[in-house]
């Protein structure tokens, strides 16, 4: 390799891209379920992520408990919230066979309601969670691994793999995959598709809660930050391929690496343009996405 080739810079760019991709996967896996499999256009997914951030912050601030551990322990709370939201959505839209556009406006409403509720309860100041590893960084030769990004990366990969294993290796999980392909056929086989879809949506909100804890460990959070993530979560889900968990992971890594390399070598300001330009190209030439069915 040429003498002045910035190996350290490239190596770090790859590591940073993967770590970022891991976080993006955690934020987007919920959308891959709700939007990819259930065709529910959940624009408010980032709002639930921010809600997860604040709950993790609350526990961390009061008890000093690790925010990510707290979010995993509290994920059943988010699961229950997800079931409630889906029940309202089902009664108002699915049952009447409304197409997903109506659900879109419904979730825009939920997004605003959640944001204002957070402002009223937590105020508008920047919150951040402190954890034991927040300030430690491992150095392996030229490459450094900030724990603030590594721990969320590891837990995120575990969560995504967990969701995938659950979907492919358990009865309920396979029912969710089936409902994604042909709800009618499932219904003919006597499966209560409402129960399956409700479970899947609740699962997607639970992942949002955990992803929220990652976010507040990585950077300070404020109620209106959720709006920035709307584009990203759908981009990752669609780029990776609708309803494919591996696809979401791949899409997240592709966007993470694209952003990291653009920021390092070209100009950080162009990172979103490169990522979303990539998405546009994929949609134009391979609408099913990288791994889509």
């Amino acid at each position: 390799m040429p003498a002045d080739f910035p190996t350290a810079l490239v190596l770090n760019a790859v590591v940073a891209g993967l770590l970022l991709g891991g976080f993006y996967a955690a934020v987007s896996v919920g959308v891959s379920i709700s939007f990819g499999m259930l065709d529910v256009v959940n624009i408010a997914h980032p709002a639930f992520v921010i809600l997860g951030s604040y709950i993790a912050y609350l526990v961390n601030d009061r008890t000093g408990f690790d925010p990510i551990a707290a979010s995993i322990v509290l994920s059943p709370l988010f699961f229950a919230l997800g079931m409630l939201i889906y029940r309202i959505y089902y009664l108002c839209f699915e049952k009447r066979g409304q197409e997903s556009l109506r659900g879109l406006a419904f979730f825009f409403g939920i997004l605003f309601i959640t944001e204002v509720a957070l402002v009223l309860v937590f105020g508008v100041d920047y919150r951040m969670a402190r954890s034991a590893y927040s300030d430690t960084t491992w150095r392996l030769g030229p490459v450094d691994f900030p724990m603030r990004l590594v721990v969320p990366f590891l837990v995120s990969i575990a969560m995504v793999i967990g969701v995938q294993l659950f979907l492919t290796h358990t009865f309920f999980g396979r029912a969710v995959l089936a409902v994604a392909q042909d709800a009618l056929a499932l219904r003919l086989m006597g499966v209560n598709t409402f129960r399956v879809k409700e479970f899947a949506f609740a699962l997607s909100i639970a992942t949002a809660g955990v992803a929220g804890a990652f976010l507040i460990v990585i950077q300070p959070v404020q109620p209106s930050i959720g709006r920035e993530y709307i584009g990203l979560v759908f981009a990752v889900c669609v780029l990776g391929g609708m309803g494919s968990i591996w696809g979401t992971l791949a899409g997240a890594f592709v966007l993470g690496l694209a952003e990291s390399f653009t920021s390092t070598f070209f100009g950080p300001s162009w990172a979103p343009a490169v990522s979303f330009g990539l998405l546009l190209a994929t949609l134009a030439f391979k609408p099913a996405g990288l791994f889509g069915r």
Partner: protein
Amino acid sequence: MKCLAAWFSGALIALCLVAAPALAQQPLKIGFGMSLTGPLAGNGKAALISMQIWQEDVNAKGGILGRKVELVYYDDQTNPSTVPSIYSKLLDVDKVDLVVSGYGTNVIAPAMPIMMQRNMTFMGLFGLNVNSKFGYDRYFQIMPSGPEPAIGWTQGFFDTAMGLSPKPQTIALVGADAEYPALALQGAREQVKRSGLKVVYDKTYPPNTVDFSPILRAIQATNPDLVYVASYPPDSAGMIRTASEVGLKTRMFGGGMVGPQFAALKAQLGPLLNGLVNYESFVPEVADRFPSIEQFLAKYQARAAKEGVDVLGFYLPPFAYAMMEVLEQSIKAVGSLDQAKLADYMHKTEFTTYVGKVRFGANGEWAQPRMLAVQYHGIAGNDLDQWRKPGRVTVLTPAPYKTGSVMTPYQDSRK
């Protein structure tokens, strides 16, 4: 279609009658829009609380011109397109006697045409370079960024840097793709031209960037003597945290970071702030130069925690209060609400306020820049009380407030 206009104005008049003021002794109404939701809500709410404290103080002393002061305000949602409607409602429907601005250039500029049409005296709260295009002679701005705002804003960092020996040669400029950082970088570029430094990195990043390591590594690769950053709170936290993770080596790091002034980031970042050179508007180290500010901060801090806003209140609250003090003193001196006389008085007078002496230049900006450039040092742990009393901050410029000189390079002073 015609029913549209009738119905439309009827509904609005009906609503405004409901909100019409009581017929008792006419209160003196001061109107403004303020960001109570959206990204800048943190600053908006902190400013609102400070103005409410001023209102209580003034009414306790019997109000102004014998009239009780009332604040009439609406939430502009950090969305500039709401501003023209808000200010024409304040002036035409609520018929407020005086107007002041919301927080930040984005919401001050859209109000300017309405102020100019009505020849209102208009006090601005932390607008950077707003009047340069309008050239309105009744515009005043409370942030001490000086006659050339973008230059004055960056003066402290560059004066300190050029004072180093040996003289620094190269500088890296980085900032967010947003209004304030873009203006600050413009000022920095002008300073670079004047000081003959060589720019080795000059790029911007999107405001919602999550990971800053690619940016700082690209900067480190250019091996700059100085790194000037213009950023908002989340990016500032990201930059400072990543600088320690990446082990950034440069002589001076910081400059125009919004964030470290707030309690939230002071607590979250703690020791990571050591060695950073940044701007502040007030620090306990200069408290002795502003006698009554302690009293105000006590009142503010008592309410801030409950309202979920910046607990310390060093950055914006004293200036929001001072803005109202200037108005108060001008009305009392002029003895009426005549906008022309008020503006004229404000141009001529040096005001003494909670933030010390305030004198306005021709364009309504401060006659002299007085942003403090400081360096944080000796911070241990993440508790907030260490910041309430002097000892953690060295004030570098301006000269009258200097309490020590800068420690370089950044990586050594970080320990």
